[in-house]
């Protein structure tokens, strides 16, 4: 019981030229087995054309406590959005 297989996070690319998206996790002894398991667990109905697996312990994540310091600096930069600029209709499609 002590020897639990490591946890892998699974990312799958859907059919339509999308990026890989996180779909869940699973346990497997190694990466090869993790991909095989991911095929069985997460793509039983053709949900994907490509699978990435990465050991969960290898993922670094931002912490929810830093939400403020991390994202607030972009809040006051409204000029990054196209709607900031008032272009007259006469200028034509843009």
């Amino acid at each position, binding site marked *: 019981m002590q020897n639990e297989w490591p946890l892998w996070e699974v990312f799958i690319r859907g059919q339509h030229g999308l990026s890989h998206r996180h779909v869940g*996790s699973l346990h497997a002894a*190694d990466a090869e087995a993790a991909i095989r398991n991911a095929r*069985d*667990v997460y793509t039983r109905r053709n949900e994907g054309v490509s699978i990435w697996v990465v050991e969960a312990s290898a993922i670094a994540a931002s912490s929810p406590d830093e939400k403020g310091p991390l994202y607030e600096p972009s809040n006051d930069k409204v000029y990054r959005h196209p709607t900031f600029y008032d272009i007259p209709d006469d200028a034509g499609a843009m």
Partner: protein
Amino acid sequence: MYAQMIKSTGQNVKSPEEMDPQERAFQERVDAGEKIEPKDWMPEGYRRTLIRQIGQHAHSEIVGQLPEGNWITRAPTLERKAILLAKVQDEAGHGLYLYCAAETLGVSRDHLTRDLLSGKMKYSSIFNYPTLTWADMGAVGWLVDGAAIMNQVPLQRTSYGPYARAMVRICKEESFHQRQGFDIMMKMANGTEAQRKMAQDALNRFWYPSLMMFGPSDENSVHSAQNMAWKIKMNTNDELRQKFVDQTAPQAAFLGLTIPDEHLKWNEARGHYDFSEPDWDEFFDVLKGNGPCSADRMEARNRAWDEGAWVREGLLAHAEKKKARKVAAE
């Protein structure tokens, strides 16, 4: 349901004034329909209750493979066999999605498994009933998966993100389960006299255990009130049971089968069917581990775990050897 009788704090729901600021902020997020994610702060009771609920749900999916697995080798046609195999494989997948949601709360899958195997954690009472004939495969898909869907559809809106996302996946797959069950029932109900009798007998045996899946009335339960405030329970047990009966009664009539309840009757004033309660003493007895197949199910799960030990250990040893070789070569 697949998670029955989930206890929470055992206390009345706190008013906003009684909550500390962190708790209040959390409850406000839940009330606003925001999802709680694994690394967010959450009350300890919320985390513990969710582990219990998701874990029990996962165990039910896993143990739930046994009554149907029982018929895979004896399915009447190759097509039925392939369908049943796919359905049972889906249930294994559902168990895995749910274990992975539970693991985001800081408990390991092996830990949950250990608690199932020791009898400390429960699984749904429904899987402690035997599947005696092929018609039971129809009744299980139609009624048991049907009842599960009633409960799982609203849970797609549950407050805990990983649980809600697992539910979305599961619900997508469940409708095939119920339809293949109903399809079997249609064939049987319209077949020979012996087949029709078999279908009726399956309905007779699975009707009340299916009603029990929703759990006893919990309108006055403090656990239920807290779980609903946290949005890890979306409806009362009675609401869901009523919905299930309302949906199922016309389906039984369509099949030409009789629901084994002389009091089942459409109530125009209520806009619902009236029906008889199941035997709740039987329910509590089954939950305690005294169901007709309880011992069998636990024995089967324990055996699978013990007999799989060499595979788990062997693959891990192989992976470590490979890793060591790779490091040495670099």
